[in-house]
């Protein structure tokens, strides 16, 4: 049995005015604010591939500026009678939709009798839809609210709400507090800005795998699927499709199948999990009894397991790698609900509950017929505690806590580094992990604590999805700080020899040049 890793094993990061910038060969590098962009710094050569991102609170749209471009100003409003409106809705979107509209409008407008009938019909429809479980609204703050569910620290107030790396290339999507999404690419100097009238309170964004420029956004009204025109002169060329379903708002999590064909959306007010075929705009609901609405879901990198966490102490692991029915294994945690979870390679699942000082568990999901260790363990399949998250205090200038409730948990795609973002700690804990062949974590060591400049707290994190073998197995963690600074934190296991390095950089440079010319040719032709 492995011993449980404790946060005590970390070294205290030194000096207050410097931020950590890189972990190169287990040596933590620091830098002050002025030298961050200095090309001579040891870390900067690893960051050339990544887009430089600057977000400050004054570039966000205020209410006035966002109103200025509203489509409503371009067209005159039309005042139809409510019956005309209902008839057109009935014709275009069906009877059910018309009933819902009639039920939600003023009784005076649609005559009380019709309103009464419509509300009763809607009640029956809702009953058919979601059974006895009824939960009309979410709490606005505290446990169970969107801010509590989102994998972002201080979701309500933070400048940056979500960040997401494209699974195949250096392209970063950033959702800000003004409900806009900005797309930063390394090779394209123009930043695309995505805005949509339905794009409110963005909780989760996710790039479509095996596609270049499609992005799914979980927002209050439903799921938006953006098709982005990169590098276009106008942002209006990008277009979005809104996928919504009755009783499935607000959506707090969207996750793509790794093959890019299916999309799962979850809502805490809905016990169903919707599986979307986005090009057909159709969905299949999946429901199991037990637990409340669903908080979030995540898919294993191989696409054969789907994790879904409910708002209560139940979570499920769906076996999606079969041609027949998907079927779910139900698990329960003793207290609270599962707050964060992530999959590593070889079907290893890590999860932690929303307790204040809980543990991170791992759950090996691979079926092993030749598992000799099975005999020594008590249970065939069980979750094993891995990291103890009890708060520890480091003496800096004053006491700094690390630990407590986890807000986000990310594992790099190769399964070597685990980043933990806490609810109330200014540091991010980076843990080195080693995976065995039987989807078990066999070794765990402290990596480092990542800190920002004084006064900064991390809001959300994401790993760059592509492993770069040629740059000494570079892994890059991107952190959005509360000041709006986006930091790329490179982690290098073994630095490449300088002589080799120059030549590779030359080659890569010439390659990028070649890319440029090709892109140029194509744009010229189309």
């Amino acid at each position: 049995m492995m011993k449980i890793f404790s946060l005590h094993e970390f070294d205290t990061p030194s000096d207050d005015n410097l931020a950590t910038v890189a972990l190169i060969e287990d040596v933590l590098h620091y830098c002050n604010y002025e030298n961050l962009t200095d090309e001579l710094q040891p870390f900067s050569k690893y960051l050339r591939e990544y887009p430089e991102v600057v977000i400050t609170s004054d570039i966000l749209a205020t209410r006035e500026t966002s109103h200025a471009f509203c489509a409503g100003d371009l067209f005159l409003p039309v005042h139809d009678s409510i019956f005309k409106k209902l008839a057109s809705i009935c014709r275009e979107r069906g009877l059910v939709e018309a009933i819902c509209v009639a039920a939600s409008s003023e009784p005076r407008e649609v005559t009380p009798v019709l309103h009464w009938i419509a509300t009763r019909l809607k009640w029956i429809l809702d009953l058919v839809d979601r059974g006895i479980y009824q939960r009309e609204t979410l709490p606005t703050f505290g446990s169970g609210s969107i801010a509590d569910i989102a994998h972002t620290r201080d979701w309500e107030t933070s400048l940056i709400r979500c960040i997401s790396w494209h699974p195949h290339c250096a392209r970063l999507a950033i959702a800000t507090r003004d409900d806009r999404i900005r797309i930063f690419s390394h090779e394209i100097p123009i930043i695309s800005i995505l805005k949509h009238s339905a794009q409110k309170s963005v909780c989760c964004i996710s790039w479509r795998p095996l596609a270049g420029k499609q992005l799914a956004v979980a927002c209050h009204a439903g799921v938006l699927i953006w098709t982005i025109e990169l590098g276009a002169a106008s942002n209006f060329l990008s277009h979005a499709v809104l996928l919504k379903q009755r009783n499935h708002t607000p959506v707090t999590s969207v996750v793509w199948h790794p093959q890019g064909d299916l999309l799962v959306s979850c809502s805490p007010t809905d016990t169903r999990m919707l599986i979307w075929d986005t090009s057909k705009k159709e969905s299949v609901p999946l429901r199991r009894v037990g637990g409340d609405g669903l908080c979030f879901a995540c898919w294993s990198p191989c696409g054969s397991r789907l994790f879904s966490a409910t708002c209560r102490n139940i979570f499920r692991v769906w076996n999606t790698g079969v041609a027949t029915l998907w079927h779910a294994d139900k698990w329960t945690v003793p207290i609270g609900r599962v707050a964060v979870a992530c999959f590593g390679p070889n079907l290893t699942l890590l999860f932690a509950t929303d307790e204040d000082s809980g543990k991170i568990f791992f759950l090996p999901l691979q079926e092993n017929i030749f598992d000799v260790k099975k005999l020594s363990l008590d249970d065939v399949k069980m979750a094993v505690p891995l990291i103890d998250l009890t708060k520890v205090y480091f003496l800096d200038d004053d006491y700094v806590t690390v630990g407590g409730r986890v807000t986000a948990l990310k594992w790099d795609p190769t399964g070597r580094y685990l980043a933990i973002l806490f609810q109330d700690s200014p540091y991010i804990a980076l843990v080195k992990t080693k995976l065995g062949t039987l989807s078990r974590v066999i070794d765990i060591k402290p990596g480092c604590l990542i800190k920002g400049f004084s006064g900064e707290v991390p809001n959300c994190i994401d790993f760059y999805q592509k492993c770069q073998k040629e740059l000494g197995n570079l892994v890059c963690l991107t952190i959005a700080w509360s000041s709006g600074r986006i930091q790329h934190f490179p982690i290098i296991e073994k630095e490449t020899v300088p002589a080799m390095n120059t030549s590779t950089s030359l080659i890569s440079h010439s390659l990028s040049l070649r890319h440029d010319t090709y892109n140029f040719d194509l744009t010229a032709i189309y």
Partner: protein
Amino acid sequence: MPPYSKSRFIKFCGIFTSQNISMGILHVTIGGLLAGLHLSIKGGKYRFLMSECSVIYGTCLMEEHYFLLLSGFWSGLYFFLKTSIFHIKYLKFPIISSSKFFRFKAGISSLLPSLMAQCIWPTLYYLIGYYFLGPYCCSTILFLTSAQLESEPLSNIPSLLNLSLIFQLWLYQLIFILAIDSMYLMFEIYLTEWVPFEFKQSSIFSTDESGVTLTEVLSIDKVPIMQHLGYLDLVTIAQKDNARRSVLFTLSQPGGHPYNWNCIVEKCTSLIKKFSDDLNACIKPQEPKLSLCAPSSTITDISVFQKQYIYRMRNLIKEEIPICTEQSDMKKDVDSELHIQKFIKTKWSNFLTYLLSKPLIAYIFGEIEGGKVCHILYNGQTVIWAADAISSLAVLSLTEDSYGIAQKDLSLIINTLLTLKQILDKLQRTNLTTKKQNEDDKFIKQIFHSLRAAAKRSLYRIVTNFEIYIGDLQLETTTIEQLHSFLAYRE
């Protein structure tokens, strides 16, 4: 899957097949039977068509019974015309496999509200029709059965506005259409279920033919549902079924040929190729100049020409595209007989084009715009699966193909998928699938979008996994150039 009909006239003629006629008769009979049975079981006032008169001597006609019975026949006729004639039936495959009961429940719950609304129309039509034609039918019946009418005839507005009668009328329409539609639903659920097929294992030990093999199923063009199921199974093998995939990647005989693999690659690529060729043939007449010189062939020349400029703007001036020398050699026939024949032919075709230029004739006999494209797109689902399956198999061959049998076909697969993608892009630009917001059109649009997504997805799948080996695949330079937008993730 109906055969392609070029004009509305041919479509109209296509209605009168023996199958359709017998179906129509069956529908009408079932409609009448349903209403009649229900009336007789329910009992009450309208139980019998004829009854003893209460006031005068003799048999009297219960006109309400007769009214409702006739409405049963009417619903049969109406829904037969609506569902079988003016509507193309297609089977929708589920997004993920789910249980039959669940699918039935979901299907019925989505059908019911729309059917309830749909049934209002035949009810109204029937009421109007009865108001005008009712008296004639009624008098015929009375004459035939020598019965009498006791009360006032129904065919006036106050007695037709009897709410319970209208409700019953509506209910019969609903029951009928619900029965028919749930039958179709059951068919759909049972037919679109995933079926595993076998591989041909031509080893010496197993000589018995137990079932249909996958390669056989893939080549059944005549029965589309079998072909669909075959491709569904293929994509399942490619993405989910590890054990059967290993059979695919082995040689059929030790030291022999990879028969299964060859067969599947050949089937998939030929299906995609045929599909893109068909589509291309439809688009071509629309823009003869552009499609004559595919941009791919001239990329290199232009790029050399344009490299000096720094502006990354679309060139508005017409390019000096090297003139394609594809002009077919005109064979000049000297024979006078042939000359006359040709003369008559041209005259005839001129006459036809003149006729077709008249609006009404063109409407009836002319080719339906976009009809051909729609017809081809109906078969799109198999192409989606074929593209997904073949690209997944190609990618998995990196790790699972120990004999290296997939290698030789990679360039063929990439080229086929690229052609498909380009044709679909072209179709998107010509915008053939527009107008009309009916159910069929929605289906076509869905298929088209899914096809585009699938084509891109498949290419990305290959490109992301073979990124470092792209140079070793022995692709043509034009192909590599076309792949570059994928390598840069710009598609």
